[in-house]
């Protein structure tokens, strides 16, 4: 090795090699490199001793802590549930009326309900629960099912509507046109009539509306009632109010009557715990009233 060459700036010797003008200095490796290497290695060594690390052919070293991420998280989730028990056990025990009368509990319901609703229900019912085309506005308090009591809501959420649950609520708006039960002109008439109930139909076509009324009486009252105010035991909506599940324009209503409708609300018992469902029930029940 020729070690006679020196760099003019640093005065350090070069390795004596040169590649197209590039040289290298014989600078020793700075101490700190070894220091950090040692530190990183010690850190690693400690981790190797504490946690599962080295594979043997059929098994692996388990580490002195003897833990595994699966156990750790199972315990964490369990502990978290225990520490929430201060208020969740109240929710489980108390009646709906008692919960709603308790401001501290209601605060927890609101906080928890916001996220539970946001992650599970908002996709259909919207973040403000005001619904959208095909998905009911839960903040309108115009219920399809039951009397709007927490018990009725709880059942809907638990079993769903037209869902895969064995006890599901079932409902169906028949396809009067598609299935040949009514001719098109009669459907048009009943559509006009239904829309007139909430003053959506321009006045003057009284004859048509009158014809529609006849059709309605013959075909629809079984589900929607004489007064068209709906029947909450079959999930048939009130047709006289301002809430429309599938849109109120003539075309949408025509489609509803012609092709029928069958909304699908999932079966939450399969996904959420009874506690979560109870929290959501209270959350939905106490939503501020909002139009669509």
């Amino acid at each position, binding site marked *: 090795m020729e070690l006679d060459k020196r*760099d003019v*700036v*640093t005065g350090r010797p*070069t*390795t004596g*090699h*040169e*590649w*197209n*003008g*590039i*040289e*290298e*200095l*014989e*600078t*020793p*490796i*700075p101490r700190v*490199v070894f220091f*950090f*290497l040692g530190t*990183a*290695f010690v*850190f*690693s060594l400690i*981790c*190797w001793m504490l*946690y*599962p*690390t*080295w*594979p043997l052919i059929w098994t*692996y*070293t388990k*580490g002195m802590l003897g833990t*595994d*991420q699966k156990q750790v998280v199972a315990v964490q989730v369990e502990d*978290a549930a225990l*520490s*929430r028990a201060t*208020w969740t056990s109240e929710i489980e025990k108390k009646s709906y009326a008692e919960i709603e009368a308790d401001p501290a509990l209601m*605060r*927890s319901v609101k*906080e*928890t309900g*916001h*996220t*539970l*609703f*946001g*992650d599970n229900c*908002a996709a259909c019912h919207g*973040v403000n629960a005001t619904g959208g085309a095909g998905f009911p506005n839960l903040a309108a308090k115009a219920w399809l099912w039951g009397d709007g009591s927490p018990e009725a809501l709880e059942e809907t959420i638990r079993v769903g509507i037209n869902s895969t649950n064995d006890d599901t609520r079932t409902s169906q708006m028949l396809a009067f046109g598609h299935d040949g039960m009514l001719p098109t002109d009669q459907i048009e008439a009943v559509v006009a009539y239904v829309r007139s109930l909430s003053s959506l139909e321009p006045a003057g076509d009284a004859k048509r509306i009158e014809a529609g009324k006849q059709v309605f009486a013959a075909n629809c009252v079984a589900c929607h009632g004489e007064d068209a105010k709906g029947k909450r035991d079959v999930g048939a909506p009130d047709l006289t109010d301002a809430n429309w599940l599938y849109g109120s324009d003539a075309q949408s209503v025509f489609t509803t009557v012609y092709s029928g409708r069958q909304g699908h609300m999932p079966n939450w018992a399969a996904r959420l715990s009874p506690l979560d469902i109870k929290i959501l029930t209270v959350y939905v029940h106490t939503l501020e009233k909002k139009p669509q």
Partner: protein
Amino acid sequence: MISRLTLSERQLALGVLLFLGIIGLAMAAAGRNDPLGGQGFIVLLFSVGLAFYVMSGYFAPEPDESRLASYYDDPTKVGIVLAMFWAVIGMAMGVWVAALLAWPELTFVDQAWASFGRLRPVHTSGVIFGFGGNALIATSFHVLQRTSRARLPDQFSPWFVLIGYNLFCIVAASGYLMGITQSKEYAEPEWYADIWLVIVWVVYFLIYLRTLARRKEPHIYVANWYYMAFILVVAVLHIVNNLAVPVSFSHAKSYSLFSGVQDAMTEWWYGHNAVAFFLTSGFLGMMYYYLPKRAGRPIFSYRLSIISFWGITFLYMWAGSHHLHYTALPQWVQTLGMTFSVMLLVPSWASAGNALATLNGAWHKVRDDATLRFMMVAAVFYGLSTFEGSFMAIRPVNSLSHYTDWTIGHVHAGALGWVAMITFGSIYALVPWLWKREAMYSPRLVEVHFWLALAGTIVYVFSMWNSGIIQGLMWRTYNDSGTLAYSFVDSLEAMHPYYIARTFGGLLFLAGAVVGTFNVLKTITLARHESATAAEPDMPAIPATSAVQAGE
């Protein structure tokens, strides 16, 4: 350029193109009911087009023996232009997908090929393989010859590698638009493209070996250690990770050999080391030549080079499992991934430090010369992103950062700050050398590019750090009741301003790349026009024993 090939090289080129054309035709015919057919047409068109080009120069007089006394730089020249071309395409695609995340309705056509999921890999492959790969191939040929003081072994195989590699990139990118992907990140191209890349890569490796075998320097220079590690390890990774069974020879689709947890580990062993040996090792090779060359300084420490090289080569290969923390991958692999990632910081910083210390005695040049400043900043970002990476590899940190934009911020600190900057710096150094000019067409524009790139990187990275950390925290924030405080959609809404900021940062970076491309093309055309008057020979002659003139 054809006129510089010998007749037998021209014949070889035509033969290979004929073979490729037949393959393309066969793919088009067999895959007529499948997207494979479309890919076949692309291969066919590509080979026919090139065959016409070769034919156009086929009858030109052959070059004489004097060519052997000079380096063979034509593939490097073309490779640089291709790299800049892919840079603009890939980064424009990056800006576009960034904009789609801010304004999803921006898509002008409601068509499959234009949707986010198909365009995103066009961006990632476009910048990593199109831009990065071409830059690596082009510079490696240049560096290899200079540091070996030997000419490339023949004139055909470098072209085969460069053109074949670009065919791979075109097939890959067009495939994504057609919906062809294996879904393995950074290895998305399907089986036939994967096989083609293996062939190209073997030839690439052989060029390296054959040139080294003919080298006049007893020692192999550090830059070549890195380029070799890049070539070799990428080959190993690519072959193992892409093992798959095609549905049939008339289907583009294949099913990977591994499944589930083994597939996940193989994919991230590959994915992480694509970062290590493509985006790091290769570009370190680049840095180890162009930085000292441009600075006119010797490498700070040869011994530091040794330990950082072997440290990187050994330790990186253990770190891939840090992409799978807390997943269904057994925890023992995660512990290994975490600890080796932490140890990896030391050789990474050693190489960044070696680069920066090499600038001792040349800091005044860094101040005045934007080209060198590109390389200096690149080394800084290299240090920064490896520090960040090692930090993110620690399990509890990763529990926050994984799945979020923090990862995207880290990626682009490395990709923009390190990979792109070192490449731009090297290209600005290399272009005037290759085209025999004093300097770039406009040093002012180099300066402009530098500031656009730096500003773009900072805006991009900071906005992603912010959004990533906010996102990660929102996902795990608990309210006083001990339940999750935010829904997913809450976190989505919080991202919007950062997605706009990122788009803006990317736009700055892209503008820089466009300016750079213009500058490079301008320098080349100037050189073309002046070469008629310049009396210098095109290539410096190499007397058998002495080195090429310094500054080359």
